[in-house]
């Protein structure tokens, strides 16, 4: 008997086959919030116009973001029976030349190319696994990002999409799914790193109805942009992960909560949900089974606090995103005071992989306590900033010098700021730290959700922390006095230090405020607010003291402390 899933696969394979049978060139442009900001839409328009002008028949598609951000806009060209080659930094003005040489004259233009998709190089262009930026990456969660049209369900299914859901619905019990996730060792990718399987287990145990599930894609912290890229590049993977989660915990209703600024992510997830509904993957009797589930999209409003679980629940209820006391676990009492299971986008995106390849496969990647791969958003003063996926436990040095191509201009590495605004910095002395949950915790830092900003010696740690505490001040929900006033005091102190007004006792005040705020605030965000500044002060003590005692900024960043030293009459 043909199941509904078999029919879905047959349709998908046929659609993909008939498209390649057309024997015309296929051109894709990575369109994401990131690439759009450097002209990818203009590139796409220019391609359509140039093909039209030359009367060339071709398939032109939008894809998502591969994470090769430093080389955006990225255009892939695949000629009939030829390899698929990715070209970097193709701005609109380069399009006529690219089409003329690659499509018309069949000259692969190796000097514009990044890599060839697949295992085989071509004309001196490296194959994907040999491409410097990809060499040490292990791209599983991101395997389809930038490769497929994110809104073409057929492409997702033809690459094995929804096979994990089919497997779960037809061959596994809820308990077996949870066992598999527990055995994989997957922990939450949103920052708190709670074991996912254990969370699901307590959610399944909750008998109160209705039971809710939330996919947390607020992603409001600075220097992190991986969840929105996963939504943009492979929305069906997230939907599949959410559906498996829903089945496993026997949930009744689902929410996907996306940060309001992530416009393309919102559009694509909404559209992907419509398509999934039309094709029987969502709603009543998913894939013809007796499992039914619905997902609503909720849009944030640009609030960092809304990423905190209980605050997000308040936001979904139509109120201010203010964290609430967690006297009872949210798997008992969450949104609408009903049992709720919340997971991060990247966590959900890992689920189909674990189901398909097995817990043992996942468990073999990573360190003793941090399993699987992790997506990092790397920015700052490295040559190849972007979104990378590496096994847990890769050293910071390897990430900076090998994956991301080293420091800009060969300047010395000074520090890295992981985990947005929640972690102490990692100094050069710890460059060999493994980027994993337990190893970072051991040196007083945090992995968080995977943000990573790299600083060279021109960055002032006092100034940077002035920004970080100020961010926390502006984003504090103001519920707890020690967070509301504490972040103000921290900003006051650091601003004074940066402007030559630092005074004796400032460092002691920082050292006193840190533990006070950690002990007396309700949510993790308030508790983490003083951590970066206090950590930086301990590691870069001399730099902090120079600002106070000598009114001097050793990195030469704080302007008030530089201009003072410029002789009158010189500018």
């Amino acid at each position, binding site marked *: 008997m043909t199941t509904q899933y078999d029919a879905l696969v047959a349709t998908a394979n046929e659609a993909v086959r008939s498209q390649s049978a057309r024997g015309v060139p296929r051109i894709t442009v990575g369109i994401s919030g*990131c690439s759009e900001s450097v002209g990818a839409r203009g590139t796409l328009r220019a391609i359509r116009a140039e093909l039209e002008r030359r009367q060339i028949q071709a398939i032109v598609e939008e894809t998502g973001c591969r994470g090769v951000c*430093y080389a*955006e806009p990225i255009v892939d060209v695949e000629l009939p029976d030829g390899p698929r080659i990715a070209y970097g930094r193709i701005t609109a003005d380069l399009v006529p030349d690219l089409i003329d040489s690659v499509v018309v004259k069949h000259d692969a233009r190796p000097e514009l190319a990044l890599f060839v998709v697949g295992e085989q190089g071509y004309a001196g262009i490296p194959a994907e696994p040999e491409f410097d930026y990809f060499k040490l990456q292990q791209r599983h969660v991101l395997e389809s990002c930038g490769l497929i049209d994110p809104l073409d369900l057929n492409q997702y299914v033809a690459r094995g999409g929804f096979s994990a859901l089919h497997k779960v619905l037809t061959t596994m019990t809820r308990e077996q799914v949870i066992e598999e996730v527990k055995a994989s060792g997957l922990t939450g990718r949103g920052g708190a790193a709670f074991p996912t399987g254990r969370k699901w287990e307590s959610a399944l145990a909750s008998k109160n109805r209705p039971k809710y599930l939330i996919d947390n894609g607020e992603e409001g912290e*600075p220097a992190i942009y991986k969840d929105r890229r996963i939504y943009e590049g492979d929305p069906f993977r997230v939907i599949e992960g959410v559906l498996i989660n829903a089945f496993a915990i026997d949930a009744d209703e689902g929410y996907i909560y996306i940060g309001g600024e992530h416009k393309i992510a919102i559009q694509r997830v909404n559209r992907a949900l419509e398509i999934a509904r039309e094709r029987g993957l969502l709603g009543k009797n998913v894939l013809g089974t007796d499992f039914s589930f619905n997902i609503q999209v909720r849009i944030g*409003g640009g609030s960092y606090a809304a990423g905190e679980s209980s605050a997000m629940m308040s936001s*979904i209820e*139509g109120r201010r995103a203010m964290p609430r006391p967690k006297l009872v676990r949210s798997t008992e009492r969450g949104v609408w005071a009903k049992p709720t299971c919340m997971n991060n986008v990247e966590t959900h995106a890992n689920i189909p992989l674990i189901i398909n390849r097995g817990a043992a496969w996942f468990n073999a990647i990573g360190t003793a306590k941090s399993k699987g791969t992790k997506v990092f958003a790397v*920015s700052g003063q490295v040559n190849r900033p972007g979104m990378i996926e590496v096994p847990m436990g890769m050293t910071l040095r390897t990430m900076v010098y090998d994956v991301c191509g080293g420091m800009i201009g060969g300047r010395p590495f000074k520090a890295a700021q992981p985990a947005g605004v929640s972690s102490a910095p990692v100094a050069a002395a710890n460059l060999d730290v493994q980027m994993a949950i337990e190893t970072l915790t051991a040196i007083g830092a945090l992995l968080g959700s995977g943000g990573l900003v790299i600083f060279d010696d*021109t960055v002032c740690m006092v100034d940077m922390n002035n920004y970080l505490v100020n*961010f926390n001040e502006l984003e504090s929900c103001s519920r707890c006095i020690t967070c509301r006033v504490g972040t103000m005091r921290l900003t006051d102190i650091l601003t004074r230090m940066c402007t030559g007004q630092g005074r004796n006792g400032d460092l002691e005040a920082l050292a006193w405020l840190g533990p006070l705020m950690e002990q007396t605030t309700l949510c993790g965000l308030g508790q983490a607010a003083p951590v970066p500044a206090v950590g930086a002060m301990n590691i870069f003590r001399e730099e902090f003291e120079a600002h106070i005692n000598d009114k001097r900024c050793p990195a030469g960043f704080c302007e008030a402390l530089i201009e003072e030293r410029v002789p009158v009459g010189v500018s």
Partner: protein
Amino acid sequence: MHERLSYEDPGWEEEVRRICAEIESVDGAVMLALHELMERFGYISEPGLVLVADLLHLTAPQVFAVATYYHEFRLEKPAETVFMLCRGPACRIQGMVGLRKTMERHLGISVGDRTADDKFAIESSGCLGICPHAPAMLIDNALVGRVSDQYLEQLIAERSGTPV
């Protein structure tokens, strides 16, 4: 993309009624309504806010509390061009300090202010999330990466003239 409506248009109330009718049955719909108003009108006016409260069976203070909490909701008509600069760490260390000064010099206003003729305003965001393309800004609600002084100067010059 919808075409922008104005609260001065005679049909504005009808539009708000239409928006609220569509989502009235959704629990906690107020955020959805406010996003729709932002999309259609560019900001949330006081009469608009009061009408939303009325239609969703909430009090005006309840809606006001939500509208004032989230950064994306505006309660005043924005300037014609809003430069929202990114304060994030990557942008900060990769040129934003200079760009901010360029803007402040050309427009004669500081971050957080708007010009007297309502043509320009400079605002800031905690992080725009396109860090690899630092320094970044949001201009006309579109993300712009790798922003240069020349780009800003040209844009300001173009838009300072009389609108066509």
